[in-house]
């Protein structure tokens, strides 16, 4: 299963994305970004387990502003 970390513009967008994905049955949580993802130490990330393309299109569907994406296969 894909694990994707979406770097988002703000905590508002993180919560919006989290709630929408959770309502669709995804395991998702809000956290701070790693230094690798965001050297400034600012911003928030959404970590999601699930098919990347589906998750990405769901976030796009509700206009969640994605700044950066980090993908990994955890299966």
């Amino acid at each position, binding site marked *: 299963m894909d694990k994707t970390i979406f770097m*988002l513009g*703000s*905590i*508002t967008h993180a919560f*919006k994305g989290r709630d929408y994905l959770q309502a669709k049955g995804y395991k998702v949580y*809000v956290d701070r970004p790693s230094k690798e993802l965001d050297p400034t130490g600012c911003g928030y990330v959404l970590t999601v387990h699930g098919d990347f393309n589906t998750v990405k299109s769901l976030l796009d569907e509700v206009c969640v502003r994605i*700044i950066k994406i980090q993908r990994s296969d955890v299966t």
Partner: protein
Amino acid sequence: MIYFDNAATTFPKPDTVLTAMVQSMQSLGANPGRGGFAMSIAVAEEIYKTRETASKLFGAAGAECVVFTHNCTHAINFALKGVLKKGDHVVVSNLEHNAMVRPLTALAKQGITVDFAPVSEGNSEKTVQAFREKIRPDTKMIACMAASNVFGIRLPIMELGQLAKEKNLLFLVDSAQTAGIIPIDVKKCNIDYLCMPGHKGLYGPMGTGILIVNNPDQMGTIIEGGTGGNSDMLVQPEYLPERLESGTVNMPGIIGLGAGMNFVMEQGMDHLYSHEMNLAKKAYEGLSSMKGIRLYTNYPDNGAHVPTISFNIGDLSSSIVAGKLGKEDIASRSGLQCAPVAHQSMGTIDGGTVRISFSAFNTEQEVIKFLEITNKML
């Protein structure tokens, strides 16, 4: 005390608002949306919940379209000054509050022009026609209040939204006197910018307001600063709500506003409106039966008014009357109520009026007492 100055700010507030604010100060004191520690995330979550509540209540496209401001005036300034450019023309009503008129007067120095359309009490068609006649090729926006803060006259927001859409104009609505008692859906009414105070019909504390942005594309900023994210960028983020929310937000105020909106939803806007209009009708009936009382509107009608009544006693100064009511522990508002344009339009610019306005917490007994005391002044 009998508090009939709810058009200025509602008092008292529901206990749930006070409790939510105190608890937030005691246990959620971190800066929201800035830190990664639990308290900062928790308080950001509470603020997000309030955004979601407002979004649902007013039909916004999403929680991010809800921008917290200091008050309704602040929201109106954001929308007018963020959108209008030199050469733009705006049509407003002839009942507007200074919250609308003063920013537009300031913008006149930058080459923005304004026309005032007369509102016909209880006649939506005539009002819309008056707005239509003021539209010019350079008109960019229709901007108006949803109801008069002085006379309680409602404007036909749905129909004016249709006019704006038909003419491809932006539509800004000041819902200071309707938010919390009359449902407004920004999408259904074609509203681009909906401005409201948090401390009136939404029962939040003073220092809170909301701007719902239904059209972010044309919106510039008038304040820039830290937003908690994208801190490496020296320019303001493009996305809402951070684009319009620089600096630390009023956390306890916003959480109190959330509790206030929950109160409104639990009570139901229809119930609140009906209750307050019944009080306004009772007050109007009593006042109209007294010789020497001057009223300026028709009998309060549920479709055409909000629960706000203006009156005078003979030639007595409105401030004298409000002062006498004050001595009897009745709170009312005298003078021009920050709306000289409305008073000019209604013929009351010389001395203004005494205004009474109601909330969920007023009772029929209070109206009876008010009428008894007023009757003694005649």
